[in-house]
């Protein structure tokens, strides 16, 4: 059995295009997911049920449904209700971002809850509003603790970008499929794609370990 | 016939030398109390004897047979030596009688019925026959330690090692454990006892060893070491334990 990577190397530009697509959707979903997650996470922590219940429903629904189902729903089902088409990028980004928002909302909630009540007391005693206390005292401390979990979430988002290939968005795996079908070399094609992902993700994973260690030492 | 012969035992933890050359002969029936300040190497010495810690150099011979370093030899040696820990180390997912039976069933491969019968005898010997089906979480410290002793005895050890058996107990529970150990001593069991209970050591031990700086600083009969210590450090140590009264 001979492994022949030459056909893969001949298609480097296709892979580069794919990598660009992966990074593109990763960036969108990372920013959208983590910031929406913060809003929803704070909503979970709000005192009025008008914010709390929708936030809880959002989190429960998007954590307990598979991302691929959401992506396909946005791509095939939503257009029936909309007067416009939903692009593969939009559908995939919506699915992944909402899912990530739900998971990161829980990370934010856990981080905020882990700050001892005394900090709230201190802030309120100075006359700070809820918003000021959250912004100046609680969140800065909580964010430090949440960084490992949030970094893990980022790694998951990166891995989820491959799901966009299910709606033919041009990212790495989609290009891998293309190369494999054109050159009849699935072994080399998919191994290369796997290696590229490993090369991207390995430093991120190592970074998480370093972060966790530093956090444990400082606590 | 020397039961246990220790020659030139040394042990370092990182840069710290804890044992700097221990020579020790233990005859059958001897009860040796090992005293010393914290950090003097008492526990380490005991744990080297059944190879729970691996000595860096030196020899340990059981029944005139030097013990090698291979794991299957060490496993067999530990079956012949019983150890009782300061923190009891009972298995929380088994009842008292389950704990006592465990060595017999898994290590000596007794049938369940035989192991149980033997375990019942040992529990009765330490006065806990009625607690056989109780889990360690529902036993007092003194009861836990007595179960631990029963567990060690079930293996028919030639030698018993006690590593500060009462140090983790509330004062009112210490007596019940010491009584069990005293009864074992009166049966003529060979034992090494690391303890801070100097009064107990005086009455039960046949020999007392004082460890300092990783070597045997002074040894002799209880009268010699505890009542008339010759070396200054031994005297200083005993003076610090003023509650010791004879």
């Amino acid at each position: 059995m001979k492994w022949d990577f030459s056909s893969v190397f001949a298609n480097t530009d296709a892979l580069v295009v794919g990598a660009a697509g992966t990074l593109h959707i990763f960036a969108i979903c990372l920013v959208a997911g983590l910031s929406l997650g913060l809003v929803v996470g704070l909503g979970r922590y709000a005192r009025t049920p008008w914010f709390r219940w929708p936030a809880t429903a959002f989190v429960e629904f998007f954590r307990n449904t598979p991302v691929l189902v959401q992506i396909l729903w946005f791509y095939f089902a939503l257009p029936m209700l909309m007067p416009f088409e939903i692009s593969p990028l939009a559908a995939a980004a919506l699915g992944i971002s909402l899912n990530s928002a739900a998971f990161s909302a829980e990370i934010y909630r856990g981080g905020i809850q882990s700050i001892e009540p005394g900090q709230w007391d201190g802030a309120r005693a100075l006359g700070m509003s809820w918003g000021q206390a959250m912004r100046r005292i609680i969140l800065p401390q909580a964010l430090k603790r949440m960084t490992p979990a949030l970094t893990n979430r980022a790694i998951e988002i990166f891995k989820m970008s491959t799901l966009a290939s299910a709606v033919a968005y041009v990212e790495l795996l989609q290009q891998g499929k293309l190369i494999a079908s054109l050159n009849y070399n699935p072994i080399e094609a998919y191994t290369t794609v796997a290696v590229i992902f490993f090369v991207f993700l390995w430093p991120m994973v190592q970074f998480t370990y370093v972060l966790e260690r530093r956090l444990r030492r400082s606590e | 016939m020397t039961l246990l012969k220790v020659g030139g035992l040394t042990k370092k933890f990182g840069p710290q030398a804890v044992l700097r050359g221990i020579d020790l002969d233990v005859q059958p029936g001897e009860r040796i109390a090992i005293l010393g300040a914290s950090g003097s190497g008492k526990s380490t010495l005991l744990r080297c004897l059944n190879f729970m810690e691996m000595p860096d150099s030196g020899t340990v011979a059981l029944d005139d047979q030097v013990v090698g370093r291979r794991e299957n030899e060490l496993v067999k040696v530990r079956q012949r030596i019983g150890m009782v820990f300061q923190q009891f180390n009972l298995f929380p997912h088994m009842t008292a009688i389950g704990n006592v039976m465990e060595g017999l069933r898994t290590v000596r491969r007794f049938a369940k019925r035989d192991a149980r019968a033997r375990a019942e005898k040992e529990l009765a010997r330490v006065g806990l026959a009625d607690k056989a089906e109780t889990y360690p979480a529902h036993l007092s410290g003194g009861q836990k330690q007595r179960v631990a002793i029963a567990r060690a005895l079930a293996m028919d050890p030639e030698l018993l090692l006690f590593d500060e058996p009462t140090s983790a107990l509330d004062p009112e529970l210490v007596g019940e454990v010491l009584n069990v150990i005293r009864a074992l001593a009166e049966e003529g069991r060979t034992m090494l006892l690391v303890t801070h209970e100097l009064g107990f050591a005086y009455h039960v031990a046949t020999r007392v060893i004082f460890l300092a700086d990783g070597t045997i600083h002074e040894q002799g009969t209880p009268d010699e070491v505890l009542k008339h210590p010759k070396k200054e450090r031994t005297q200083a140590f005993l003076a610090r334990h003023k509650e010791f009264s004879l």
Partner: protein
Amino acid sequence: MTYRWDFTPVLANAPLLAEGLVNTLKVTGVSLGCGLAIGLALALMRLSRHRLASWPAGFVIEVFRTTPPLVQLFWFFFALPLIVGLSMTPFLAACVTFSIQSAAFFAEVFRAGIQSIERGQWDGARAIGMTHGQALQRIILPQAVKRMIPAFMERAIELMKTTTLVATIAYADLLFAANELSQKTFRPLETYTVVALIYFVVIFLASQIARLLELRLARSGESTVH
């Protein structure tokens, strides 16, 4: 023009969806079972003092945690058969991929669980002459496993969601059934909405059970490992 919802074609094909759900559960079940067994083996290899065991195990664990599941699935379905000369059904490829992937995750949970058992338990076991293997089997693992149950349940639920990936290699799971049905009835909105709800209900129930279990374990005084 507002859309007119019509769920009847979907409900009429309920058996198709039911079969899809059963297949989803089949893949989940098989992968979980194999993943547990392989995961334990990987954990023990990883903890071993012999580098011949710990390095390959570490390699497998890292690779399967650092590459996307869909890439792994494609590799096992398209690439492996050519290397080994065996033909792979989608079901087999799915089970192999998700078993090893779960195993990589479980290995870390096992490792944390075993390492969380206090050293005194090893002492107690070795002092009565147990071998390393006997101590592990009789004393350490029974205690460790209880602590790891929440993490296992978490992974099981995660796996139920990950199995949707098999629809991309044409295995007839629930999502694949949804795709087929949507094309057959020209009612993607109703189909995918119903399927999303089915997934939600099943997975939500499972996570509630997991939460209850964790509460009961916490009440009985067991510390847990994540």
